[in-house]
């Protein structure tokens, strides 16, 4: 993964969902982006998870531009949540998580979640029998 990539969640309110805003990131700011997930329907709110690659300044300018066009920009980590009361620390998710965002703390054998490393692949959501990992998208 690119060192200067930043993972973000974009929410498009109804009024802006059908306009081509995201491509402006490349055209105006020379940013590259990988769309990790997207669900946009023309008449409802749309959501897109992407990695934006480029210098920090350009990233900030690009995201400020999106915000000025009515897009809500949030860091990605907010979107996968661990419901601690339901987690019984089995570790099934640890063996699935591709980034180490979920890890087994030793010697306590308690499972910990570092949202900063999460790329919202949702494998843990699939694999958690306790339904303790929740995707808020």
């Amino acid at each position: 993964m690119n060192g200067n990539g930043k993972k973000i969640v974009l929410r498009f309110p109804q009024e802006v969902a059908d306009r081509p805003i995201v491509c402006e990131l490349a055209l105006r700011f020379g940013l590259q982006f990988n769309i990790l997930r997207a669900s946009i329907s023309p008449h409802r709110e749309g959501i897109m998870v992407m990695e934006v690659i480029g210098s920090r300044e350009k990233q900030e300018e690009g995201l400020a531009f999106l915000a000025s066009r009515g897009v809500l920009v949030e860091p990605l980590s907010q979107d996968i949540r661990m419901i601690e009361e339901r987690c019984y620390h089995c570790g099934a998710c640890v063996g699935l998580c591709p980034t180490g965002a979920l890890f087994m703390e030793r010697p306590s054998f308690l499972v910990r979640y570092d949202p900063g490393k999460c790329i919202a692949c949702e494998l843990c959501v699939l694999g958690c029998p306790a339904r303790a990992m929740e995707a808020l998208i």
Partner: protein
Amino acid sequence: MSKTLRTYEEINEKIAKGQVVVVTAEEVIDLVREKGIERVAREVDVVTTGTFGIMCSSGAFLNIGHTKPRMKIHEAYLNGVMAYAGLAAVDLYIGATQPAKDDPLNKVHPGEFRYGGGHVIEDLVAGRDVLLEAYAYGTDCYPRKKLVTWINIRDLNEAYLFNPRNAYQNYNVAVNPSDKTLYTYLGVLLPRMGNAGYSSAGQLSPLLNDPFYRVIGIGTRIFLGGGIGYVVWQGTQHNPSVARNERGIPKGGAGTLAVIGDLKGMSPKWIQGVSIRGYGCSLALGLGVPIPILDEETLYYCSVSDEEILAPVVDYSHAYPHGTGEVLGYVSYAELRSGIIKIQGKEVPTAPMSSYSKAREVALTLKQWIQEGKFTLTKPVAPLPGVESGVRFKNLVERPVETSVLVGR
């Protein structure tokens, strides 16, 4: 047989006096390494074991009390999950793996199985109201035909867990060498051996600490779901004849326990409904068994460590579903617990389905109960079938059914 060091009666006397010495099956390992079997056997009275994981073959009997007019329930649903009513009038059995009646199951694979019998049991234990819908055909003595009501565990006459098979003595490690993701009861298995699912508390697991069922038997009092329970029989599929290593540890799934316990004394901390993607619903449960150190041999067996317990690695894309019996190799629980195992030269991350931290907590809780005098030990009234019993787990041999029998079915 080594010399008897203490009896159940002597242990219980020490419990009553607050003088009993208890350690967990994890703590005992280092203790024995340090001091040796002989000395530790003299000092320690009881070793506590524990496990916490998904235990299929679990369920609860409920008696809801009679209605007015009376009703002999024929069909019943608890929060939309079918409970078995073919017992009497108002006795129900809710099985852990029964999905809700409107569950789309695996129609859209992998199904979510959001709510099932295990969740009903959790809701009952947590003291939440549960919706009961019941139907009957009506009889002269039981005329009522329909019932819709809220029920709550506090109002039930009896509510007890009765699990036909829990606490498997060792189990498979599941991998998936195929090219597509598999959804199994040992978890989501990523393609090309992307992970390995397993489920045992290893060195803390009850039957791995008493591999020949020398002390755990019918009548043994246990920790069950945060309350008190008993071993009532060998579990279904109990298979003492599995090959064993030099420490007596079976090289695959072997002994099992049938257990019972009052649901009213349990806690949602130790009993939780689960949804296994693409597979179904079930129940995660904490279970712990005390092992009285009657002699040195008992201690020797319960000083076993994760390095000495091996589990078979099985291909769940082919060998398991087709029952070929093929094993890809063996790995120890120490390796499994480290987070990475090596299979055919490939490093594979492990994905446990049972919780080691909770297993440890079960053993520690049971230890505390015994130390505080809240839990005494019971001597089994009958043993579980051992290696010498010749009991062997059999597969079904199907027999062709004649067309004449099938007509009209």
